[in-house]
């Protein structure tokens, strides 16, 4: 794959773009699921994000590209670097955005016995898989609903725990695997189990633009990109840099962003109104709102921040009523109207 389409050149699809940025600011948000029709730029957005992310500092020679700040004594095999060494060598690398191809086998995903060394030297060595490669970055699965269920389970489990535990073929390895899971899918090709859906932090619905001008713009930009990828990317470089700077600044600001009591209360009221199970909804909503505030350059989470991310954070957590025509998005919108309606007026 050559040059990626610039992130800022993507027309519309604001919700998806924002959700991806939120996940980049706060990876603990727990992944993003993008549902939408074909040809809405789902994959384009994720790949564009990869090109946009600021570089990160990592320990040189560590297959898990750990942060030099974690002074672990022994990393997982096959890493031989002493992470506690004061003279630790580090380098700047792009944030990994790993594509999980369909048809990937479990051994490649979690890691397995190193066949080469086993065959050639008769050694039992661990060869890290995709999860190791995705550590501290993003793992992207297109058509997540076509992935084998057991693989999806495994991925979600690792994504939630931040650690990949391998117990197979006589190997016993655990290594860090903190990544943001980004899944995309087309609901027409099979739905995702509701239990899985709930594990994603944010869920975004994208639809094809039906506005003629927007559509023309999409086609024009894409066409310009295809004819001269480098030139097009250069044209958008400034805009992309701006987004990148916003991202870096937001990441730094995030720990200082304050979440007022009132916002927490609103989150709880909203979740109760929607009848979402468990506390995951509230937690995600709070974190997402904080990330949005950081992206906005705000120091305190406001009602508007909450309101903006509530659909993404909650729409996939509703008790599913397969026969409710109105769909989850409409239900969330209704609840938001109820809970925020008064608050909005009060704020003004």
């Amino acid at each position, binding site marked *: *794959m*050559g040059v990626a389409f610039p992130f800022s050149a993507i027309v519309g699809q604001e919700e998806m773009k924002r959700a991806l940025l939120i996940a980049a600011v706060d990876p603990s948000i727990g992944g993003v699921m993008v549902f939408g*029709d*074909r*040809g*809405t*730029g789902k*994959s384009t957005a994720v790949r564009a994000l990869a090109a946009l992310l600021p570089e990160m500092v990592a320990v040189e020679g560590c297959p898990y590209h750990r942060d030099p700040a974690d002074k672990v004594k022994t990393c997982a095999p096959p890493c031989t670097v002493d992470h506690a060494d004061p003279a630790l060598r580090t380098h700047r690398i792009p944030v990994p955005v790993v*594509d999980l*191809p*369909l*048809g*990937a*086998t*479990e*051994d*490649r*995903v979690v890691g*397995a*016995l*190193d*066949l*080469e060394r*086993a*065959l*050639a*030297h*008769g*050694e*039992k060595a661990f*060869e890290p*898989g*995709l999860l190791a490669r995705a550590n501290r970055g993003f793992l992207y699965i*297109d*058509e997540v609903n*076509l992935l*084998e269920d*057991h693989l999806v389970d495994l991925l979600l489990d690792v994504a939630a725990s931040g650690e990949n535990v391998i117990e197979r*073929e*006589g190997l016993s390895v655990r290594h860090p695997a903190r990544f943001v899971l980004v899944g995309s899918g*087309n609901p*027409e*090709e*099979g*739905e995702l189990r509701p239990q899985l859906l709930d594990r994603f932090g944010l869920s975004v619905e994208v639809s*094809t*633009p*039906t506005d*003629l001008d927007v*559509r*023309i713009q*999409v*086609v*024009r930009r894409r*066409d310009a990109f*295809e*004819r001269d990828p480098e030139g097009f990317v250069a044209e958008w470089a400034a805009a992309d840099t701006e987004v990148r700077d916003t991202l870096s600044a937001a990441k730094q600001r995030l720990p200082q962003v304050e979440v007022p009591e009132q916002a927490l209360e609103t989150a709880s009221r909203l979740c109760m109104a929607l009848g979402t199970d468990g506390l995951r909804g509230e937690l995600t909503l709070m974190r997402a709102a904080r990330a949005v505030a950081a992206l906005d350059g705000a120091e305190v989470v406001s009602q508007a921040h909450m309101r903006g991310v509530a659909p993404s954070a909650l729409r996939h957590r509703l008790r599913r009523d*397969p*026969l409710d*025509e109105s769909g989850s998005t409409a239900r969330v919108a209704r609840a938001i109207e109820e809970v925020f309606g008064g608050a909005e007026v009060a704020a003004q």
Partner: protein
Amino acid sequence: MSQPAAGPDTAGPPAEQRESASATLAAVLGPWDDAALAAALLAVDPHGLGGVLVRGLPGPVRDHWQELVRRLLPPETPFRKIPLHIGDDRLLGGLDLAATLRAGRPVAQRGVLAESDGGVVLLPMAERVATGTAAKLAAVLDNGSVGAERDGLTLKAEARIGAVAYDEGGEDDEPVAGALAERLALHIDLTRIAPRDIGEAPAEAPDIVAARQRLCRVTVPDDAVKALCGSALALGVYSMRIPLLAVRVARAAAALDGRDEVDETDAALAARLVLAPRATQMPAGQEEEPAEQEPEEPEPPPEPPEDQEPPEESEDDEQDQLTPEELAEVILAAAQAAVPPNLLALIQAGLGPKRRKTPAGKAGARKYGATRGRPSGTRAGMPGQNGARLNVIETLRSAAPWQTLRRREFEMMAARAREEGYTPANPPRVLVRRDDFRVMRYRQRTLTTTIFAVDASGSAALHRLAEAKGAVELLLAECYVRRDQVAVVAFRGKGAEVLLPPTRSLVRAKRSLARLPGGGGTPLAAGVETAAMLADAAAHHGQSPVLVMLTDGRANVGLDGKGGRAKAQAEAMEAAGRVRLAGHSALVLDTAPRPDPRARQLAEAMDATYLPLPQADAASISQAVQAAAK
């Protein structure tokens, strides 16, 4: 164009090229000419266009067309067929076993897609390609490269391919996987072309070479982009990929024609080959659409949709430059003219351009060995037993850690053998033992397909259509939990109709049900037959069908669509007998106000569970369906 046609020429010297190609575009275009043009366009930009979806069975026309594609592609261009049963290792690449064993280290081998880089792959029976394979192909078409993580290897290779997918499905087969069909720009239909219609090629190999060089220089004016986007919307083609592909097709057409800028003939051609076959609505006759969405076409061209004569020729003889409005109209008209003639009828039936329903019931062929289904891991075992297949990678993997030990053992045995005066064999590179063998484990998911056959006739409508709908909705909720597929057949008036082919989308199921009108006679036999055919098809795909009939059993319309109670009843019973013979699980929900003996008889004839709706509450219905599914 200004020159209206001299007859389809083959390409001549550059000076005449413009004329000849525009002649080809604007002249009387038979279906063959479009198909041949599609072949030429594919040859110009295989990867950019994604490929061609060809509807048509194997035969002289298709062979001729395929040969044309091959002839137009530059020599040495890969032109590979992908067999239906291809495994991921050959498709995407994998471990080269022979080389691996020889070298004593993993050696990768490229798959067909990587080997076809820069060329064209052929997919016969594309409608049977598994969703997973289609999605992998789609990813390769998108990325221009093939990536795989398998067999302990990471593979990444260029694969800038175009695909020719042959849709050979019959009327009752599923269409080609949407993810794949969407990425193939050109959709052509060879079924209506007779061998005698085969005409000349629109271009020759040297033209293609020239066009390829020109392609990157071709610009697309804004008006053309606008017109194509507008036409796509007006035709109800919503995916953003389609107008993009149309722009690329227009560009390839301009390059083929020897021009550096896309003009209206190119755009019209793109509309005809890319947009029209995907139309889900006609711009004309759409009450709400024209005013708000498509200002460029205030009154859609009045000509009736025909698919052969391009009606926009009159536009050509006036002047070269068209206003954007005119251009949009020309392009829309071109697309419209190519919209299949039966589309309107399909749209009225609320079905869009999907193939649907009826004949050719197949029986039998329902046995599957234990070696089918989705692979789900491996287990220790001997290959060959019960047809179990060896999984080489896992076998090697399990043997690998022991190699040093075994080699040592082997040496010891060899030494002992030498002491005893034998000459020991050379040790093999890899010492594999019986315990190491791993065989593939397959899991065959038996998906249940619940087929609802709803009696929407006047008698039922009067009493309980609403209740029947309610009952179906309850069952749908059950199906959702179990992740079953559902299909809905309705029968009323003169015959039965598949409202919803098997799907997992409950929203669609519910919608199709909500739209279901009531009234008319009761063509019970047709309802049973249609439902049974869906059941046969589901069984044929390895699923377990469950038939749920909601009827009062009072047939009064026969299979021929004519009235006559006795005959209708007899035919219904006969159809029910066939259901019993096929062995489908069935349930009859009697929707009559009072339990009707005829519904009971129908249930008996089908060997179905009988449940009178008046006494059935939600729970007992769902229990009954579950019992029937077992």
